[in-house]
């Protein structure tokens, strides 16, 4: 089944009484003409790399080449002053770990982009750890995350240069939230609500990286976007619905992206990049 809307996925899943991940896997089989097993193995390879990147990110010696970022994940993991509970601490730690590895030229799974690669693994793997959920189910949830993101790619954009950071970390947060709801046994409708809630609340997020690097604010933003996704999961699982349906939120995101000034879309010509400190950093790194 070809899906161009989140609504298609939700309706078909509810009618056929299957999970959204099942529809995404079927569609992938149809498109690629590959065996189901090969497709599952490919996603399982993604999961393996996600786990490795979390582990690598908790290596205390990590420092980016520019020196702007490194070690955030370890600090948060080892914090004695963390409030908000173990799950939240774990989610933020893992997100910082993966995005830290990305900034240091380590290996990650782009999702939906390299700059937003920490969000989906952080949320899904923290939940899986807490509730002892087996890898097979996490792999399925990754298909749900990917399927939701695919609709955004078809209908709008996943590029910071076209839609700002709402299209990268915003969509990453929404993908993670929807997938986590499925992992926790939520209904397809709740998956859509979690997706819509997360994305709605990151609309307008600009892409203004300091010195053009995927470091400031990107690394820490992965931690924020992952904890943001957790809030969306909790709302959706409490049957709080999104008033604006997911597909309309995607349309709104594209509209906001189009209205956004080019200076705030990955050009480093505005926002944090052109603050006094941002400019100084760029100047200092000019010959680097």
């Amino acid at each position, binding site marked *: 089944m070809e899906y161009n809307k989140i609504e298609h996925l939700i309706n078909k899943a509810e009618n056929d009484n299957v999970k959204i991940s099942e529809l995404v896997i079927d569609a992938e089989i149809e498109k690629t003409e590959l065996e189901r097993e090969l497709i599952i193995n490919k996603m399982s390879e993604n999961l393996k790399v996600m786990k490795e990147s979390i582990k690598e990110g908790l290596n205390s010696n990590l420092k980016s080449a520019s020196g702007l970022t490194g070690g955030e994940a370890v600090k948060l993991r080892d914090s004695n002053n963390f409030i908000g509970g173990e799950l939240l601490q774990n989610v933020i730690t893992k997100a910082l770990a993966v995005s830290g590895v990305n900034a240091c*030229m380590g290996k990650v799974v782009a999702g939906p982009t390299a700059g937003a690669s920490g969000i989906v693994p952080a949320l899904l793997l923290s939940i899986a750890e807490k509730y002892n959920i087996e890898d097979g189910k996490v792999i399925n949830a990754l298909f749900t995350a990917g399927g939701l993101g695919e609709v955004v790619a*078809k209908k709008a954009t996943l590029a910071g*240069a076209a839609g700002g950071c709402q299209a990268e970390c915003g969509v990453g947060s929404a993908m993670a939230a929807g997938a986590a709801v499925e992992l926790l046994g939520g209904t397809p409708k709740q998956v859509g609500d979690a997706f819509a809630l997360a994305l709605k609340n990151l609309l307008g997020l600009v892409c203004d990286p300091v010195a053009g690097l995927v470091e400031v604010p990107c690394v820490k933003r992965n931690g924020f976007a992952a904890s943001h996704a957790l809030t969306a999961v909790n709302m959706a699982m409490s049957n709080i619905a999104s008033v604006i349906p997911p597909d309309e939120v995607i349309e709104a995101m594209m509209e906001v992206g189009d209205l956004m000034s080019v200076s705030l879309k990955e050009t480093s010509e505005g926002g944090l990049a052109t603050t006094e400190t941002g400019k100084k950093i760029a100047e200092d790194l000019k010959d680097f």
Partner: protein
Amino acid sequence: MSVFNVLGPIMIGPSSSHTAGAVKVGYLAKTIFKDKIIKADIHLHGSFARTFKGHGTDRALVGGLLGFKPDDERIKDALNIAAERGIEIDFHLSELKNVHPNTAKLDLYSENKEMTIIGSSVGGSQIKIIKINDYEVDFTGEMPTLWVLHKDEPGEIGIITSILGSYKLNIARMIVFRNRKGEVGSAIIELDHKVNDYVISHLDNMEDIYQVRYIEPF
């Protein structure tokens, strides 16, 4: 569109466009050139020129030229590895005309051959090769792709497509180009299925086909 375009690729960070895309440009350039590279002049344009070090675009392009794919952990050390292998690499900041902001021009040299390839990273880790020497081309390397140089005369394209058809290879997209009538024609042919060595040597052995290069997707 595949779900793995959204959750993937597995890649060395930090940037889909400036790192993974750059590796792909280098890798495709190496595949097209085919000879053993002894020297490369790498011209960086636009955003590639402004932020190449922080994104590892330099190491990514060289890694691709060394045959590394976007998930190869050796990318980080690509400059050293190239030096160890005796490949001379020089970077230049250049202004190229009418190209995407993320573009690199690669001048590649072997013992007795040289070639210029221009590629752009156009969003996510998607890329496009836009020029090979004086030939305008346009392909992404995401599908099995043939680049064929042939005599520019009536029926030549028909011969090439008939040969492919006889092996049950379906053409998805084809672009033909020539600089001057009656001289050398360039054909980019994207196919639905992978091409084996036998088909390539069949094409290569045709009298009016001068060169065949095959790029397999990864």
